[in-house]
């Protein structure tokens, strides 16, 4: 529906305020508490080269973690919005194209083989490469006679993801306890150990991906209505679907490679934003980016403080939020259909 301009402005203002609040809490709270009023002082001290304990915590640990959380959240949420439009399914998320399960196989294999400890980049690189290979396999399976069929893609994604999960479980069951712990830590998704290099890498993929998504926002609007409708008005269907799947795979691949598997952000955020600011992707993508960043940062804060001194993996927090929301969506969709007599 056409949303009033003032409502859209209010929505974006609220999102920006929430992002700022979550960011300050992320910088301030944790095993070492730094009062919010000291955040800027410590950041400035770190940038000026003064290495007090608080300044180091702020500049070398929390700031890259904040930026990584924001970028990964934005990347997952915007990609979720794109995939929901392409699949015409509000329950589609980045996992649907197999990127998460595919990445898991590569990362778990590298950890299990003991190669991961040789270089910090081996696990993310393996996750990225295996994620891309999986997406390609699913894409090939879902493309028949030169046309990418959405249902075929969806079912191929489910089947290949199940196969990947089985491989991961098999590797897990064969590994000793210590390696198993390391693997589980990656599978649950986390932002610990964020580095500036990670931040630079994710920034490139997420920002470029976001710009590409924005150039296709009108096509995504039309695709969300239906493929035949889109073809009727001149959307180059196959080209748009290919471009969006490739860019989605690259964005999510980059995110998963640095943060592990973080579920549900790509499912919840675009859906909430669509309800709040409407279905138009010109606005939805921006709102999803802000909402995704805010939600992952806030989840990271919760994961740090909820069981202090234990720090949870952020994936656990997002799953605790996402699973009930997913069930709510499922029930809502079915009750809507029953109500409509379908």
């Amino acid at each position, binding site marked *: *529906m*056409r949303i009033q301009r003032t409502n859209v402005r209010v929505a974006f203002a609220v999102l920006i305020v929430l992002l700022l609040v979550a960011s300050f809490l992320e910088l301030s709270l944790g095993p070492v508490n730094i009062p919010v009023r000291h955040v800027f002082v410590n950041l400035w001290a770190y940038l000026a080269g003064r290495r007090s304990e608080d300044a180091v915590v702020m500049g070398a640990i929390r700031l890259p973690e904040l930026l990584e959380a924001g970028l990964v959240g934005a990347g997952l949420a915007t990609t979720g919005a794109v995939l929901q439009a392409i699949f015409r399914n509000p329950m589609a998320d980045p996992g649907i194209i197999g990127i998460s399960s595919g990445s898991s196989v590569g990362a778990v294999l590298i950890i299990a083989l003991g190669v991961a400890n040789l270089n910090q980049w081996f696990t993310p690189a393996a996750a990225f490469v295996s994620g891309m290979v999986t997406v390609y396999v699913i894409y090939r399976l879902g493309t028949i006679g030169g046309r990418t069929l959405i249902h075929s893609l969806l079912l191929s994604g489910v089947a290949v993801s199940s196969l990947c999960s089985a491989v991961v479980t098999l590797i897990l069951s064969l590994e000793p306890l210590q390696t198993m712990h390391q693997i589980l830590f990656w599978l649950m998704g986390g932002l610990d150990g964020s580095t500036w290099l990670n931040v630079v890498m994710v920034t490139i993929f997420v920002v470029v991906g976001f710009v590409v998504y924005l150039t296709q926002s009108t096509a995504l609007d039309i695709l969300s209505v239906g493929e*035949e*409708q889109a*073809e*009727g*008005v*001149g959307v*180059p269907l196959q080209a748009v679907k290919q471009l969006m799947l490739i860019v989605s795979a690259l964005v999510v691949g980059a995110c998963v490679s640095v943060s592990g598997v973080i579920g549900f952000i790509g499912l919840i955020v675009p859906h909430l934003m669509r309800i709040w600011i409407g279905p138009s992707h010109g606005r939805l993508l921006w709102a999803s980016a802000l909402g995704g960043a805010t939600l992952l940062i806030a989840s990271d804060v919760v994961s740090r403080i909820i069981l202090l001194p234990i720090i949870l993996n952020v994936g656990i927090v997002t799953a605790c939020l996402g699973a009930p929301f997913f069930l709510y969506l499922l029930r809502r969709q079915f009750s809507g259909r029953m109500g409509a007599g379908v």
Partner: protein
Amino acid sequence: MLELKQVNYLNIIRSVSAKLETGLVGVIGPNGAGKSTLLKLIAGVERPDSGEILLNGQAVHEMKSKERAKQLAYMPQQVPDDVIFSVREYVEMGRYAHRTGFGTLTAQCRQAVAAALRRMNLESLANTPLGQLSGGERQRVAIARCLAQGTSALVLDEPISSLDLHYQMSILNLLSQLAEEGYLIVMAIHHLELAAQYCGRLILLNDGCIYRMGGVEEVLQPEVVHDVFQIDAKVFKDPYHHSLRLSCATKV
């Protein structure tokens, strides 16, 4: 001008050839005759296995999507009922091929959308979500989206299928007007009586082949209707409205 040359598609459409210029052309035939598939082929949604479909001399399936959408608008059979875009936003989608840069609507686009909404009497519903409309209203919105596209050829798959008699006739009157203005409108239609009344030309499909093509009286011969639809029917001139009518009698 639209020209079909020996078009074959799977086993659904077989050796279909036709030459259509302007006017309201009705594609009729029993269920499963291949009407919707033929329209999809004409619209470039499906690609023929063999043969050619030429629009103003260019092969439809060789044209770039946007180029094709500037010359031909296609309305699928099913208008979605779960869309949360407003009527105006949906009609604006018809201008996809004319937008600039990041999808910005030009002043010309806005004028075309306003004119389409006005012509289909949808101005009062412009800000209503499409999913909240009745089936008939959604059908009018879908036709408005085609009109907004600004093409001279419209391919409409059963445009009056879920409309009441009033809207069926008002839409067919509008399509007749457009045909008189020089549009080529190819539409699938089940309602033989209305097809006889409004269409200038008919293509009767049966089992994927053209069984008969031409003017109403030529196509709707009693023996032809009997062969294809297994009903007795007769075309006559309505003495009150001076238009052709089809009288369907007993079922065989």
